[in-house]
């Protein structure tokens, strides 16, 4: 799952560094992701993992790192 997340971040997050070398707990907003690119990341994650983020999860912390995205997906997949 982490590799899929990294691939989506590489395509949609517009990070200043390669998403494949980013630490799992690195702050994606500090790495260059804007609020708008986080929407693209969210939509791409929904397509990739066939899920839908509810409004209650549309907060900054849900998408702030690779680890945070992974736990959000795991929570939605339960």
């Amino acid at each position, binding site marked *: 799952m982490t590799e899929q997340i990294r691939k989506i971040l590489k395509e949609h997050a517009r990070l200043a560094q390669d998403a494949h070398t980013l630490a799992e707990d690195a702050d994606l907003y500090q790495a260059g992701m804007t609020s*708008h690119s986080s929407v*693209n990341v969210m939509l791409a994650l929904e397509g990739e993992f066939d899920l839908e983020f509810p*409004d209650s999860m*549309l907060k*900054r912390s849900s998408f702030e790192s690779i680890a945070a995205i992974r736990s959000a997906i795991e929570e939605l997949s339960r």
Partner: protein
Amino acid sequence: MMRVGIDLVRVSRIAESLEQFGARFLNRVFTAGEIAYASAAPALTTERLAARFAAKEAALKALGLAGRGVGWRDIEVLHGAVGPELRLHGAAAQAGAVELALSLSHEGDYATAIVITQLAFTRTGIAA
């Protein structure tokens, strides 16, 4: 207390989202009224959507809601008689705003929005 929020959006990025995600992007972020208003001026549709996206982000900042889990459609831009206005729904409507003012602008590839609000109460632990 008074709070202010500002956001700046590149119009071309909104165009890319529309190309990549189409109706999913449109319907997730914008209300039917916002889509209708933007679509009414085909030459300005993307600029209007970009300014509205900036307004939603500026409102999240002003209201201190970035860390709270609010859908974008819960912050709606209406086209009032004297210009754009904000209407809050759902969780955004619970943020304590007693006054809200919005100003939008776009030029070339950039759209921006400023929101000023008067909050009836303050919260702690806001990660705006």
